């Protein structure tokens, strides 16, 4: 069960559709209620139901799927070819171009050579009147330049293929008001003593992976927001996920087998900060829970599009760390 549970015909106050009636979730399910759509839905054409669903899922794969975030590629590879190569994988791993997600030879101390020169594929610009024009192309974010004393040996032939790809995530839950308002749980991958003590320096640390952000009122009981007060009194919990896969790849850690588990166990750490960027000791957040999991892709029978699952918990990674689950069966 999640969140306050409203029904489809509940009023969405204060937005009214007439003198006497408020708008409901049912009323605004379709964007055509307000006479608009989004480019991706329009581009799917005059289809609905399963056909529209397939079109949108393919579009989302193309815009945001793993093939768009891994390394430098000379051509986009749609998820369908992931399905094709999974079928071939039962024979033997096949090295194909350009379906092979070959990561350029990568040295953590700064230099790297790309044996497949060519411009990185830029994401397609959205078209349509809702789009923002003239924005700079997507920057996938800084690759950690490494640090002296870091025990991460570069691998010469590191590759991630559709067959060896696995998603790694950290799931986080805690009480919404445990940080005294807005704040974040920030994740780092690397030697613990290299994590900056000052939260203001976390984002620029080469070890930084990502955060779970809390968006909350800093004074729930006295603010006049009755929802906030109620949630605080009920110790309402919130949750989210930090993705670890791309960072593991940039550290050249294989995504399957024992190596990622051992690596995360040694190097994955987290810290907490509030909305003023002050460090909050994790001991003062007893409600914090962190679980690390991984999953591969599976092609459902008769399907053309791989889906994630099943998920495996890796208690070894979080054991002994603040809020980390210690056992496979622990809640």
């Amino acid at each position: 069960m999640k969140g306050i549970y409203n029904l489809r015909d509940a009023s969405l106050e204060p937005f009214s559709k007439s003198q006497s009636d408020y708008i409901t979730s049912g009323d605004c399910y379709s964007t055509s209620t307000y006479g608009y759509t989004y480019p991706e839905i329009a581009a799917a054409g005059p289809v609905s139901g399963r056909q529209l669903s397939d079109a949108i899922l393919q579009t989302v794969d193309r815009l945001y799927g793993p093939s768009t975030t891994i390394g430098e590629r000379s051509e986009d590879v749609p998820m369908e070819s992931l399905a094709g190569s999974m079928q071939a994988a039962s024979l033997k791993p096949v090295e194909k171009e350009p379906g092979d997600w070959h990561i350029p030879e990568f040295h953590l101390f700064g230099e790297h050579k790309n044996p497949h020169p060519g411009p990185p594929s830029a994401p397609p610009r959205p078209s349509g009147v809702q789009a923002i024009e003239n924005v700079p192309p997507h920057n996938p974010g800084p690759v950690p330049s490494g640090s002296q004393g870091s025990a991460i040996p570069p691998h010469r032939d590191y590759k991630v293929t559709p067959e060896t790809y696995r998603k790694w995530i950290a799931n986080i839950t805690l009480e919404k008001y445990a940080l005294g308002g807005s704040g974040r749980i920030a994740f780092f991958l690397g030697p613990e003593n290299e994590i900056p003590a000052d939260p203001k320096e976390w984002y620029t640390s080469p070890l930084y992976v990502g955060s779970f952000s809390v968006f909350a009122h800093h004074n729930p009981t006295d603010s006049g927001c009755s929802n906030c007060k109620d949630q605080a009194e009920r110790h309402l919990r919130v949750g989210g996920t930090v993705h670890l896969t791309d960072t593991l790849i940039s550290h050249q850690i294989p995504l399957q087998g024992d190596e990622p588990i051992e690596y995360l166990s040694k190097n994955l750490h987290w810290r907490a900060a509030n909305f003023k960027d002050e460090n909050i000791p994790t001991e003062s957040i007893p409600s914090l829970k962190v679980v690390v999991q991984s999953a591969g892709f599976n092609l459902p029978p008769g399907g053309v599009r791989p889906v994630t699952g099943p998920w495996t918990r890796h208690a070894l990674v979080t054991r002994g760390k603040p809020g980390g689950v210690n056992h496979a069966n622990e809640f």
Partner: protein
Amino acid sequence: MILVNTFPSWHRPYLALYEQQLASYFPDIVQLYQKGSRGEQLANAAQVWRLPYWDWALYPTMPDEWSSSEIKIYGPDGNITSFHNPFAAYKFPHPNLFDGPSATSRDTRANENLTANSRQFKPWVHELFNTPPPQNDPWGQISNSAWENVDMDQGHLSSFESIHDHIHDFVGGTMRDITVAAFDPIFWLHHCNVDRIFALWCAAFPDIYVPTEKTSEGINDKMTFNERHL
């Protein structure tokens, strides 16, 4: 309107209202530009304009045009002129009436914050579509970031709301304060993208939405049923 399963739907009429209010200024502006060389172009644009969205997953950093104090626009005569940038900040009309800043602001390192975290944005969005929500209250799972007695191993825990929260955090300043975030013009471009993801998701999973009936399956007894909220 947070931590409720109507987080996405409540914000939709909110956006529509804002869009309607903005558009209500258009006739006067079109009139002003009528005689200049851009008059017709503007009149045509006013017919089809809708609120733009900021796809932070594809474009995680904010362009300079969103924060520079001046921007270049076409003036009523059709010539390029410099204009104070209303998008950079909202100036409160009567700051003396309350104890606070005179205008909205963002974190000085907002773009660095966004870049440092940008590796998360695509996987967050993609996972919403690639891992269908569990059978137990699927709309609740996807719509808001509350978590109560739910299996932490079912897959990712992201929701429309949790993903949206991060952008508020990274842009920072006024956007990080829940009581005044909507005064920053960027709030509207951000929430338009949240609405877009909501719309795309409903197209991808047409059988899942705010429930029509109360069921006892998976409902946490400690939760209150609210049929009216706020």
